[in-house]
């Protein structure tokens, strides 16, 4: 019922945000803050790792979409790592699969950034 957020630098000025737990109306502000801080620091190539996320709701999706919109304004992108079938299903039925790059592992998501 909580979220852990870990931000780390990766290759080629890209940043990875590791999320662990549940992203809902209560916890998503914490995720939003982490992503906003990266963008404020002019990091526009982000991988958001959802492998350890058990649950995401519309507010969590909204935060991801908001982040994507902001980095795109600077020619950047947000790629997601997602293996949980229930969460993949949410991206499917909302059509957000067409907006985000969604990958099975971090290497794939990193490679597609550059």
């Amino acid at each position, binding site marked *: 019922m909580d979220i852990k957020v870990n931000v780390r630098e990766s290759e080629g000025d890209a940043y990875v945000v590791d999320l662990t737990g*549940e992203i*809902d*109306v209560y916890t998503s502000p914490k995720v939003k803050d982490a992503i906003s801080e990266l963008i404020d620091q002019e990091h526009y190539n982000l991988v958001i790792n959802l492998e350890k996320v058990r*649950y995401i*709701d*519309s507010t969590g999706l909204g935060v991801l979409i908001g982040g994507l919109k902001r980095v795109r304004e600077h020619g950047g992108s947000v790629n997601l790592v997602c293996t949980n079938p229930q969460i993949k*299903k949410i991206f499917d039925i*909302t059509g*957000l699969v067409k*907006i985000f790059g969604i990958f099975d592992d971090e290497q794939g998501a990193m490679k597609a950034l550059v």
Partner: protein
Amino acid sequence: MNPALAADPSFGKIELRIPAKAEWVAVARLAVAAVASRIHFSVDEIEDIKLAIAEACTNCIGHGGEGNQIEITSEIFSDEMRISVRDRSLGHKLESVEKDTGFAEGKRTEELGVFLIRALMDEVTYDVDARAGTELTMIKRVS
């Protein structure tokens, strides 16, 4: 499935009341999932129900003023679950999202929530009453 449940079509209601605040939505999600696990839903179906309930509660937050509460009533039948989510706020733009059109870019988060409810549940109806507030009723059937 518990045969006692199957035998009795009006098996019983579980009612939950939480403050309309973000930190309590997880309680609603877990309680309703616990109720759902009493009939033969699959793990995926229980996840669908959890998300739909959470979206319905999230819609109540920020509307209805200070002290607004969310009342969630779950009723179990032999092959379906009926859940209603009531609060004293009005409307939530529930009409603005259609089930089958897919989710167009530019929609706001609240509409995304309503879209998910319609996509994940088998029947969704709502009732807005200027005095009583909004009641969203959802049915999920065992597949």
